């Protein structure tokens, strides 16, 4: 059969496969995390960011952006949040934290490890979310009343996620994170 001129053939590269695999792991973590009851809306461990950190360290910022944004999109579809306020909040949080990660990855590696990146990204995440929440969802300065709570959560979960990412990165010939029992 002669190949059709309108046929589109997608040839996924090794990078595409890698992005898909890591994004899948991140999506699983997000969906699993959504089942955990939490006392305050907005305070979440954000375990999927472990994947983002690992991808950032191993494969660079561009790939980390792909993984993080695919994760936001697909997990919102799975959880029925697509285009709901929560989707935009997590999108903005991801975008701001990816921007900060892009800067933080250039910090000298001798002194600053994944924990620094994780904590900084977590703060960027709540910062971006609070600004959007203030501008759009809760147009009142009352949202900032919760800043200390969010900051504490960002510190704590930033530390935990950063430590897990550091540990995963340390394993020399580590299997892909989704099989490492994150």
């Amino acid at each position: 059969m002669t190949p059709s001129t309108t046929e589109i053939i997608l040839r996924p590269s090794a990078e595409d496969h890698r992005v898909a695999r890591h994004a899948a792991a991140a999506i699983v973590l997000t969906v699993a995390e959504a089942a955990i009851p939490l006392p305050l809306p907005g305070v979440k461990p954000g375990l999927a960011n472990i994947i983002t950190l690992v991808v950032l360290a191993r494969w660079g910022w561009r790939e980390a952006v792909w993984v993080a944004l695919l994760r936001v999109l697909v997990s919102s579809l799975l959880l029925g949040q697509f285009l709901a306020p929560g989707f935009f909040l997590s999108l903005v949080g991801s975008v701001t934290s990816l921007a900060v990660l892009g800067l933080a990855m250039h910090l000298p590696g001798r002194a600053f490890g994944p924990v620094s990146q994780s904590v900084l990204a977590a703060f960027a995440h709540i910062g971006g979310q609070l600004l959007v929440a203030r501008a759009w969802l809760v147009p009142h300065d009352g949202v900032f009343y919760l800043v200390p709570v969010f900051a504490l959560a960002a510190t704590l979960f930033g530390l935990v996620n950063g430590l897990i990412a550091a540990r995963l990165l340390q394993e020399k010939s580590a299997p892909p994170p989704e099989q490492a029992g994150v």
Partner: protein
Amino acid sequence: MIPGPALRGWLAAWAAHLKWGDVLVLAAALAACGLSAVALWQGGRPDKAIIKAGGRVFAEVDLNATRILEVPGPLGATRIEIQPGRARVAADPGPRQYCVRQGWLSSAGAVAICAPNQVSLALSGRTADYDSINY
């Protein structure tokens, strides 16, 4: 409680992933938590008491020292007691004593009114979320 050797080893294994820059970032993060809590959660602290008699301001007193004021009104003198961070109407000649029974006022926006003697005591601060009349 002294952690057992297993727990200590476990913690040490995790702590091994922390570099000095990470500790710095964590310290800064904790400082940000503390500072934001202080900055955002103390807005209700009063810093001044405004005492009115007969509709006019009788005195504005800083809430940083202990002090007793006698405010004259049509029925007699209302005694107002100021202490660091709080104030109350200690005695009033009015018949129902509502303002006295309110006790110590300690948040910005709180108001005690002794209507019969035309005396009121109000606390003001940088940011009062509500006043006790509207509330």
